[in-house]
Every structure is written in structure tokens, then in C-alpha cells.
């Protein structure tokens, strides 16, 4: 057992490790190490909690840790990289669910022992339960949509927004009633939590499958805020710090993604848009025309193209088409053309998902200079075009920025000299 008063200081060490770990995620070289640091921070927080005086019995804890830890480990090891968005959605939901249960337990505990709750504790219990519930069921719907267990199309019904607003206002009313009346009204609490669970479902069903990346990032943010609220409830700073970090990071990610799609967050959340990948549009906003061409025509054009930019999509990775694209690129180069790759930040099904999928191919991850020979030696379907892609990506969005990430690479993409653009499913050529 530890001397009283030491625990908060050790929690501070955990918080510092989370911050340093996140900082190290800024570069692929240090990222793994950063994740490890953040994991150690978590381990420290858990150990300190167990050694602290508040723990009286360990049976339930041991059972929970074994079951939860085992399940988590098994899920993480067995999940396919293409299913990563679903996995993150599910984990997110569990995090939110845990926060809901902790907040709920604190509330019920006060009811059981008869100890009055301080008003601010009560407020944060209500907030934590609301946000935790929305995260739990919202993530679960996102999981179902991504796993294609339910339709990826927006689910809408008449007066949906009005209905959602009514549900939300009822939750607020119940929560306020709970806080202002003395004592604990358990039924009111259950009603509030139940409506919050419903709200999570209602908020996510009108969002199309293609917009799920934004939703996951946002729910990630919610799960952080729920954890921070739990921190207020149990008066623990490390929860507040960690929760706030996750809350802001999720918000930033959702914003980045919305910008990449040229849409506002409100449009994504309430627009009931993004059910199908936009197919037939033939004019972009800048007035460029998109032409679909036959395979023969594409071959001809590619043979004479001076610069080809490949924009890989989710389909390419799922079809394991990396090596075919690689062969195509070699052929184009043989004919004197130049091949470049550009990955859209929201290609795949979550931000940066494409990079993960392409990094999965175990070989050919050499530096740009010698990738040719390496890839050929490794042979077979494992040949990878990943090095080009990884480098192309970091400078795709903001040209002046890219030197910082990949200094050794020549700045070519920024001059926008597109001649031919190849997408994964069909061939699209932009003149």
C-alpha cells in the first residue's frame, strides 16, 4: 500500500506519458515508441489505482480484467486491417459504455449509501452518462454500418430533426430536474440514460456509410469527453487530462476530414448525405470534366502519357491490386512516363486508412531510391507500391508543408500537371 497523497503525483506521471506518447505520434519513426509510452502511462495509472486505499476486494477486478483484457487482445490480434474502422468504432463504444457505467455506478452508490451528492458531482454524472450513452450506441450503429450488418444508406424519417431535438431536450429536462431536486431519483436517472442511448442511435442512423470516418472521429472525441466527465465525478485529474486530450484530438480529426471533403461538420452530421459513393457526376466544382474511358483507350493514353498520377482507393487495397498497379507503373516508366501517387486523406474508410492498408504488405518498404529492385526480388502478390504512396501523401494537401515530412523527396506533385488520373475501380482520365 502507498502513503496517502502519493497517488495524484503518480497519476501525473501517467498524464505526462500520455502527452509525450501523443507527441511521438507525429512521426512514423517514433510513433510506435509513443504508443508504447502511452501504454505504460495507462499501466501505471491502473497499478496506482489498485494499490490505492480505495480498493477493498480484488475478485471482481481480477475477473473483469481477465475477461476484458482477453477479449480486447483477441479482437486486436484477429481483426483484419481492412476492418480497422469497425474495430475502432467498437472499441470507442466500449470506452463510452465504461464511462456510462462508472458515472451510473457513482449515482447508484450515492442512492445506496444515502450520502448526498454535491451538485457539481451530480451535474458531471448526468453529463458523463449522456455522452457515454451516445458514444456507446452511436459507435455501435457506426460499427453495424461499416460491417454492413445494416444499410450504409442514410436512414431518415419524417420530422427526424424535430424528433431528435425533442429527445435531446427531454434528456436535458430530466437531467436538470435530477440536479435541482434533492436526493436521487433513480427512475429519472434510468429514463435519462435510456433516452441518451436512443439519442446515440438517432444521431448516427441518418449519416451515410461514406461519412462514417467523420462520425468515428467525432465519437472518439465524445468518448474522451465522457472519460473527462468521469474524471470530474470521481475527482481524478488523470482522467480529466486524458479525456480532454482525446476529446480535442477527435474534434480536430473530424474537422480535417470535413475540410478534405469540402463539407462542413454540420453538413456531415445533419445532411443525410454520403449514402453512395458519388458516381455519375461529370463536372467538378472547378469545371473540370471527368471522362470515363474504355480499358483499351486507357492503355493507349497511359502509353503516351508523360505524367500519370494514381489515386488509390479502398477497392484497390481490398482487391490486393497493389502489385498490378506496380507493374503498370513499371510499364509506363519504361515508355518514358512518370508515375506519381496521391492518397486522399479520407481514402479508405477512416482517416489515413489507405496508408495502413498499403503498409500492410510486408515487403518492398524500402526507401524511394531502391524500391524498384527490392520489390521485384520480393515477388508475388506482396509487392508493394507503398513507399511512393506514403511519401506522396504527406505532401498532397499542403504543398509548402511537405518538405518538413519528407525532405529527401523532389517536389513534383505541387505543380499540378495532371495528365491522367487512374482510380482503383474504373479508369478515369482527367484532361
Amino acid at each position: 500500500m502507498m502513503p496517502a497523497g502519493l497517488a495524484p503525483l503518480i497519476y501525473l506521471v501517467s498524464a505526462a506519458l500520455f502527452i509525450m506518447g501523443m507527441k511521438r505520434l507525429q512521426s512514423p519513426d517514433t510513433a510506435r515508441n509513443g504508443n508504447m509510452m502511452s501504454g505504460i502511462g495507462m499501466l501505471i495509472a491502473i497499478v496506482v489505482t489498485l494499490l490505492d486505499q480505495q480498493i477493498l476486494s480484488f475478485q471482481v477486478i481480477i475477473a473483469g480484467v481477465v475477461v476484458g483484457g482477453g477479449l480486447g487482445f483477441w479482437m486486436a490480434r484477429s481483426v483484419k486491417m481492412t476492418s480497422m474502422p469497425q474495430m475502432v468504432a467498437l472499441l470507442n463504444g466500449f470506452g463510452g459504455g465504461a464511462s456510462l457505467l462508472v458515472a451510473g455506478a457513482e449515482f447508484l452508490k450515492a442512492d445506496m449509501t444515502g450520502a448526498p451528492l454535491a451538485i457539481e458531482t451530480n451535474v458531471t454524472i448526468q453529463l458523463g452518462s449522456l455522452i457515454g450513452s451516445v458514444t456507446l450506441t452511436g459507435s455501435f450503429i457506426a460499427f453495424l454500418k461499416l460491417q454492413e450488418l445494416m444499410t450504409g444508406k442514410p436512414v431518415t424519417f419524417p420530422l427526424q430533426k424535430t424528433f431528435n431535438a425533442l429527445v435531446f431536450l427531454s434528456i436535458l429536462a430530466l437531467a436538470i430536474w435530477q440536479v435541482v431536486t434533492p436526493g436521487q431519483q433513480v427512475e429519472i436517472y434510468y429514463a435519462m440514460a435510456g433516452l441518451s442511448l436512443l439519442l446515440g442511435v438517432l444521431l448516427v442512423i441518418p449519416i451515410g456509410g461514406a461519412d462514417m470516418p467523420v462520425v468515428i472521429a467525432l465519437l472518439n472525441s465524445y468518448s474522451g469527453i465522457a472519460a473527462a466527465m468521469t474524471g470530474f465525478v470521481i475527482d481524478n485529474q488523470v482522467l480529466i487530462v486524458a479525456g480532454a486530450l482525446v476529446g480535442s484530438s477527435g474534434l480536430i480529426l473530424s474537422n480535417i476530414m470535413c475540410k478534405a471533403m469540402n463539407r462542413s461538420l454540420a453538413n456531415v452530421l445533419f445532411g443525410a448525405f454520403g449514402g453512395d459513393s458519388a458516381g455519375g457526376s461529370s463536372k467538378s466544382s472547378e469545371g473540370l470534366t471527368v471522362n470515363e474511358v474504355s480499358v483499351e483507350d486507357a492503355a493507349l493514353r497511359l502509353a503516351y502519357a508523360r505524367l500519370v498520377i494514381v489515386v488509390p482507393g479502398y477497392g484497390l487495397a481490398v482487391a490486393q491490386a497493389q502489385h498490378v498497379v506496380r507493374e503498370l507503373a513499371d510499364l509506363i516508366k519504361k515508355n518514358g512516363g512518370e508515375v506519381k501517387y496521391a492518397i486522399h486523406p479520407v481514402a479508405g474508410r477512416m482517416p489515413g486508412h489507405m496508408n495502413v492498408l498499403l503498409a500492410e504488405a510486408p515487403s518492398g518498404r524500402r526507401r524511394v531510391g531502391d524500391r524498384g529492385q527490392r520489390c521485384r526480388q520480393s515477388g508475388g502478390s506482396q509487392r508493394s507500391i507503398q513507399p511512393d504512396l506514403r511519401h506522396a501523401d504527406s505532401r498532397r494537401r499542403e504543398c509548402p508543408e511537405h518538405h518538413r515530412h519528407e525532405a529527401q523527396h523532389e517536389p513534383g506533385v505541387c505543380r499540378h500537371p495532371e495528365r491522367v488520373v487512374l482510380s482503383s475501380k474504373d479508369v478515369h482520365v482527367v484532361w
Partner: protein
Amino acid sequence: MSEGIILGIVVFTLATFLGFELIQRVPPTLHTPLMSGSNAISGITIVGALIIAGGDFGWISQYVGFGAVVLAMINVVGGYTVTDRMLRMFRKDPEES
């Protein structure tokens, strides 16, 4: 309002700004691991779950506490393991591993 809550609000606000600063510089390549990694951090609610499950509050500890520990542990262990799996693939020199 008690001092605890005010201190909490201060810490929350500062940590939010810190989070904005930290995340803005992460390159798009790493956004997926970032998301699953920060997701794992949100599993910090395990601390609360352990306190409930380890307390002496009858069915609340036994059922609600157990459920909270299970969910939070899945979040923590799953999140860190899967993030590590992804980041292992991002290493620049495969020979080192």
C-alpha cells in the same frame, strides 16, 4: 463550487488546448493509428471502473463495476494492441525489427 471542480475545469481547458496543439502536427499518414491510439487513452476510465469494482457496494460493485472493468479493459488492451500492430507496419527499416 468546490475548489476541486474549479481545478478540474482549469485542467480540462488547458489539456484541450494541449491536445489541439499536439494533434495538428500529426501527418495524415498516421491518422488511423492516432485515432486508435487516442481511443485507447480514452480507456483511462478504467481507473473509475476499478474503484467501483473494488469497492464494497454490493450489486453495484459486482455487476456494474464488473461490466465497467470489462468494457474499459477491452478498450485499453484492444486499443493499444491494434495501434501497435499498425505502427509496426509503418517502421521505415524492416530490418530493425
